[in-house]
């Protein structure tokens, strides 16, 4: 064989050998067993910043609005609280989190009243919000829920964007609560969010007695959330640690008095014509619970949350106001 030919081949082989060796070293993973299994915890996790805003001095912290016209009510209530402008400013991206958990018509009081959602979205727009995102991860099939609950339409009417919980929209969230440490969360909406408003219907709940503004955040989590029920009160308390919203709105225009959280009959619903707006979820929920005619002292998660300094059940002592509107 010719020399040139030999060198050529030797060179090529040499390169191949070196390449193979480098590749093998590069890919080599010595870890096994313990290290491997320890590893999953250190997965990439996201975290949520606080969306709270500084309140104007003397502005009301909790407004209880009575009336029939959600828009008038929201305006009146927020006026007391120092106007929407003190919560949402120009250019904000506002995530509104309704409860659209089930595929029910609004009249059944199972999902957030679309008119309330609309009112809030409008106010945000007037305050100059750049973009409004409506997001929830329903228990029933998402499109169905958004459509049948009227939230879809409401959002479209005010030009808000509805975000559906596609698998790609989820990320691991570092909660570091007492019951939840890391959990998959419907994170996509919050990548751009600068303000967050929770709009929860006031519902009876078979397990935790009542689902209000705190329980509402359940709808942002994914994964095996049907395990939460094993420690439901700690988990709900964790929510108020996980999410620090700009504002929460308790939509008690209708209340689901029984057969919660799914309802199904008009007779389960009571027209209450009330909206509670607040910044302290615990306070709002404590008040909200009285709307059922039930005793807040007996609602664990409120007191668990209060004990952890996540809010106060003593709404009476706070700067609150009852407003008649619309």
């Amino acid at each position, binding site marked *: 064989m010719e020399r040139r030919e030999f060198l050529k081949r030797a060179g090529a082989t040499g390169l191949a050998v070196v390449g193979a060796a480098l590749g093998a070293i590069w890919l080599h993973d010595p870890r096994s067993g313990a290290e491997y299994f320890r590893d999953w915890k250190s997965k990439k996790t996201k975290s949520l910043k606080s969306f709270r805003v500084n309140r104007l001095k003397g502005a009301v912290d909790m407004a209880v609005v009575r009336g029939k016209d959600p828009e008038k009510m929201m305006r009146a209530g927020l006026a007391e609280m120092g106007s929407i402008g003190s919560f949402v400013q120009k250019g904000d991206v506002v995530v509104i989190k309704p409860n659209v958990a089930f595929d029910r018509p609004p009249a059944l009081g199972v999902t957030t009243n679309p008119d309330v959602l609309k009112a809030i979205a409008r106010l945000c727009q007037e305050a100059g919000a750049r973009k409004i995102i409506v997001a929830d991860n329903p228990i029933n099939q998402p499109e169905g829920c958004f459509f049948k609950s009227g939230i879809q339409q409401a959002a479209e009417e005010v030009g808000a964007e509805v975000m559906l919980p596609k698998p790609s929209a989820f990320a691991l969230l570092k909660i570091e609560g007492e019951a939840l440490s890391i959990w998959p969360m419907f994170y996509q909406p919050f990548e751009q969010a600068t303000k967050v408003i929770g709009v929860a219907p006031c519902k009876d709940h078979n397990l935790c007695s009542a689902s209000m503004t705190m329980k509402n955040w359940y709808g942002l989590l994914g994964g095996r959330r049907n395990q939460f029920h094993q420690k439901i009160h700690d988990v709900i308390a964790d929510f108020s640690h996980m999410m620090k919203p700009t504002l929460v709105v308790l939509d008690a225009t209708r209340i689901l008095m029984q057969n919660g959280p799914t309802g199904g009959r008009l007779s389960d619903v009571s027209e209450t014509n009330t909206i509670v707006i607040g910044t302290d979820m615990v306070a709002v929920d404590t008040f909200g*619970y009285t709307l059922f005619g039930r005793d807040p002292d007996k609602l664990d998660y409120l007191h668990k949350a209060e004990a952890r300094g996540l809010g106060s059940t003593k709404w009476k002592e706070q700067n609150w106001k009852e407003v*008649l509107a619309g």
Partner: protein
Amino acid sequence: MLLLLLVGIGIGIYVKGQVYDPGLFSLNPYALSRDRSAEAQLDRLVSLGDGKSKSFSGVDMHPSSPSGLLDNLAPAEWKPLGNVTQFTADSLYEKIDGRAEQYIDYKFVRLTCLSLVNAQDSKQFIDVYLYDMGRPAQAFGVFSVERSEGLPSVSLGREGYRVEASYFFWKGRYYVQLLASGKGAELAQVGLNVARALERRLKDDGEPLWGLKALPEKDRIRGTVQYFLIDAMSLDFMKDTFIAQYRKGEAKVTAFLSKQSSLDAAVKTLVSYEAYLKKTGKVIDKRETGVYTLVTGDMGGTFDIVFRKGKLIGGVTMVETRSIGEKAALDLLAALQD
């Protein structure tokens, strides 16, 4: 030709696609059977009134339609006369004229009225006045200043009494008057039934009022406690004050007690009281111990004795005899625990 056919098919399908029954995609709630009879509504109102609610606002499930509380109130053989009417602070005059001020002084929220008339004999009627006073203390306030001594008390709401066939009581945030057209046990009974029915619908957190606890029971004349949101003893600076009559031997003594928001608020109040005494009479004695300050004023014929103990302002007013007055004031002082 064939191509046109295809286009035709396309259009046909599109058109078909746009006409459909949305009912197939979401439930029309009106397909749901309604069981919202007035009874059901009332049941709900009543059933919620289990008195456990800790919030006065949570108490009234139907704040925007308080008239709901007067629905179906007429007993057998009686019927409502006209509609339920409502009055706010701005329109209260139209219903009760000059007496309106008194209610407005107590931050009156809403008056809801209904006349019930005997279906047989229209001369017999009962006018129901439901005053929503916003807060229990205020409801008690108007109740207390309208009540005069020695009226037969009836166990209605927190406190109630009867004048012939008319009933007056307060419960939760409500003050209720049932004014009957005449006297007579029969009418009185009907009135009582109505009162009971209405009472059941009003919710109440049962929290006792501060003053009623704080004012000592000893020597107190039953049913004389009054609460003033403002202008207690016609003094502009005396707000949020409880007043009660005490029997000291022969004499009757009017004692008052007020819890001020803060210490210096209390101090201020005492100062203005003293100033008032100086202006309309003269201060004849002033004691300061570590615990309390006590001022005695001679108003020409009667004496006012006022003290401050911590945040509390208390005393007696318009007592004929100084010694009795001072004794009463000191008794009150002693009985206070803060």
